[in-house]
């Protein structure tokens, strides 16, 4: 007897329907899976057999042939355990194929018949909904994640036996509640808050600009100056995620298996800080299954590279293309996947190998060549894509020892949100959210300067030997500063402040 069950598969963060066709014939007992299945699917044999037996059903002593259609696409993962088990029970005529009509079934079985959680539920459900499917049987542990998609029926299940009783009509399973994004937003309680960072007025200001305009930023300073602390506070002033942004992030986190099952959706901008020993693949994504890397996990959030020159040169150089395009293409043997990678890069570094160049407290012992070599570990093109360079000075004792709190993050965040609203309004017809992502055309339109400012920029270029590539960056930052100021046009003072943030250009080029 033949059974047909609908299920779903994933390439990258896009789903595609998979039809599981199952036939039981007379012959020597056997279990054949065809349709480019990976090892996890082939191993389903043992799990399915044990689960069916332990749910007190009969496992057929016949030849079982399973085809995963379309047969020419590679399939992977353990989500086909449940549909295969249901297929066998249909073929054994315990349930009817009709009862499963229109259902998309996903779930991994354990030997005792329990259904275990899966990765990538959200992207599969979203693309299934777009394809017109609207009834789903999924593991109960993934229910939270599925509850943010409206207009679909989701039945969360816990055991194989429960599914059978449900399909037979013996019991009813409560449909998954649909939740709104707003209900998931909770009062943020950030571990790190700018209220506890003493002094550092210029660095805080630079971070405010970075958050408001989505600009990349590099912090340069001696050890112990508080670079890492500042970076960790950064998420607390980032503008709130919108629902669309949140879904993009959740999809990636779901595929990578880092989603919190209790939360179900990502509500805070991600903050990823890979260690400097991280490999290229760990950062960009890849591996046998073309999993998303750190830069994709940081999508719509922050990628923090502490001590940037310590990273392998080729590893950080690969960031250049995604920083420009906002996505990364991971090409593997069997499949080519595109992951979004639209992050704010926050990097930190010492000014020289010993770390004390220019420090007031310690004498630097590095030779000029050593400093030059250290700084040149970060290539010009990469530095180019970092809009804000800010030097962090160490804090003196008087600053540390007074107990007054500084301006809290929530106050800064209000200003950031206001500036971001202006930008959202400005770019409402295009696909970008922030000033940092402006293209040439938008740049021309929104970064126009008056005569006074143009001549100022000209003098500054000559005086500080700025490169042509610094030009765009300075103007984009000036645009954000004007937005923070609530001004329609870029003014002279905005421009002057923006030029201050190109330290590395000024100092290290002739």
């Amino acid at each position, binding site marked *: 007897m033949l059974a047909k069950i609908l299920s779903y598969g994933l390439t990258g963060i896009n789903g595609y329907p998979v039809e599981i066709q199952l036939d039981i014939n007379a012959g020597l007992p056997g279990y054949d899976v065809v349709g480019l299945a990976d090892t996890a699917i082939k191993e389903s044999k043992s799990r399915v057999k044990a689960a069916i037996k332990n749910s007190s059903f009969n496992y057929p002593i016949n030849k079982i042939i399973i085809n995963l259609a379309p047969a020419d696409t590679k399939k992977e993962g353990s989500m086909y355990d449940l549909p295969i088990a249901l297929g066998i029970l249909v073929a054994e005529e315990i349930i009817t194929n009709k009862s499963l009509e229109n259902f998309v079934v996903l779930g991994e079985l354990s030997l005792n018949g329990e259904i275990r959680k899966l990765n990538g539920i959200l992207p599969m459900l979203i693309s299934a909904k777009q394809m017109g499917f609207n009834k789903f049987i999924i593991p109960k542990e993934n229910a939270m994640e599925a509850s943010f998609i409206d207009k679909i029926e989701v039945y969360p299940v816990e055991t194989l036996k429960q599914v059978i009783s449900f399909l037979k009509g013996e019991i009813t399973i409560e449909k998954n509640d649909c939740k709104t994004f707003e209900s998931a937003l909770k009062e943020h309680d950030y571990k790190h808050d700018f209220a506890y960072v003493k*002094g*550092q*007025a*210029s660095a*805080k*200001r630079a971070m405010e600009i970075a958050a408001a305009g989505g600009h990349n930023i590099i912090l340069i*300073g*001696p050890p112990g100056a508080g670079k890492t602390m500042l970076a960790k506070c950064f998420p607390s002033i980032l503008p709130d995620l919108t629902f669309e942004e949140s879904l993009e992030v959740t999809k990636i986190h779901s595929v990578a298996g880092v989603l919190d099952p209790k939360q179900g959706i990502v509500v805070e901008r991600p903050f990823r800080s890979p260690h400097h020993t991280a490999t290229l693949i760990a950062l960009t994504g890849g591996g046998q299954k073309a999993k998303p890397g750190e830069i994709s996990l940081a999508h719509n959030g922050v990628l923090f590279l502490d001590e940037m020159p310590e990273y392998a040169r080729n590893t950080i150089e690969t960031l250049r293309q995604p920083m420009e395009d906002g996505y990364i293409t991971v090409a593997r043997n069997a499949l080519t996947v595109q992951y979004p990678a639209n992050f704010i890069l926050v990097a930190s570094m010492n*000014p020289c190998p010993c770390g004390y*160049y*220019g*420090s*007031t407290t310690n*004498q*630097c012992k590095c*030779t*000029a*060549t050593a400093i*030059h070599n250290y700084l040149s570990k970060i290539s010009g093109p990469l530095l180019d894509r970092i809009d804000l360079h*800010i*030097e*962090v*000075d160490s*804090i*003196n004792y008087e*600053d540390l020892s007074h107990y007054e709190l500084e301006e809290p993050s929530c106050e800064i965040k209000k200003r950031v949100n206001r500036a971001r609203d202006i930008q959202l309004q400005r770019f409402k017809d295009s696909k970008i959210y922030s000033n940092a992502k402006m293209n040439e055309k938008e740049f021309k339109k929104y970064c126009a300067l008056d005569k006074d400012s143009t001549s100022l920029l000209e*003098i*500054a270029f000559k*005086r500080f030997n700025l490169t042509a590539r610094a030009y765009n960056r300075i103007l984009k930052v000036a645009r954000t*500063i004007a937005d*923070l100021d609530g001004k329609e046009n870029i003014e*002279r*003072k905005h421009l*002057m*402040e923006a*030029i*201050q943030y190109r*330290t590395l250009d*000024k*100092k290290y*080029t*002739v």
Partner: protein
Amino acid sequence: MTIEDRNIIWLDLFPFLTYQKKKKILELFGKGKDIKSSFLSNKYIREILADDEIAKMSNMLDNQILDRYIEKFNSDNIIIITINDPRYPKLLLEIASPPLCLYCKGNIQLLDSVSIAVVGTRRPTDYGVVTTKQFVKELVQNDVTIVSGMAVGIDTIAHKTALENQGKTIAVLAGGLYHIYPAVNQALARKMIENNLILSENSPNVTPTTYYFPIRNRIIAGLSSGVLIPEAGEKSGSLHTAKYADDFNREVYAIPGKITSEMSKGTNSLIKELKAHITLSPDFILEALHINKNKNKIFDIQLDILDQSILNYIQTEKKTFQEIADFTHIPASELNSVLFELEMNGLVTKLANNSYIKT
């Protein structure tokens, strides 16, 4: 080009020939004779040169080889000034061992201008950076040419400050002009050949080795009326330059520093041993050069109370951005543009670590 000039250029092609050997060979063959034509037939040559040296040189006896070299140098805009050339700088002729030939690139009119050498440590402190900038700026504004050695540190700052203030500057290199050292300064060298000058006594193909640097320092001292040392450590090469300057009867100016500072040990001991003038301001050097201070170039900038109070605050000691912010009580956003404006007008200098000092 005279036959003597060609002789010198030919001898310069062999890096193993020392200054003394070259002089001896030139004496041996006498004036007006081509060395190459009678090189092998001269029996006294073996008293000066070793066999392998003679062997190497005899491979290059062909006139065409020398012509090709000279043609190449010309096409690379290298101006060759031998000691017999009227363009050879007069001051340099006064020294004990004037270079036989100068390979120059850039504006050779600077060779006879009034000049001061500015040399010092390769690892200056903030104090060295600020004083160098201040002195060089003042000097070039009064049309004094700055001579230095293009090493990292004080030398580079001296060249760059001269360029920034539209002044004149000469770099004397240790190696040949095809081997700019240190490589970091290649861009600076390119900029300098536009209106200023780089030169070397070595043939352009000679690679710089440690041996050449102290010898090169005699040219730096020889080209200038005086040597200014803003900062030098105990064993700094700039002390060689000071020694040469002393030998050549040129003035040595040292800027005193803190006795605890590693990088002022050299300058302080020069002062202590009475080998250098204790130099407190650029005016002192200008007076010694009999230059009337050029008043026109000082321009007035309107300062408001805030600017003035910041300038007073950072007058003597560098202050970090945070300290200035705490002092003035104005937000970082505004302070950034205020400091930028001051920096643009050349009133403050931004140092590493986001700190500022009055220029």
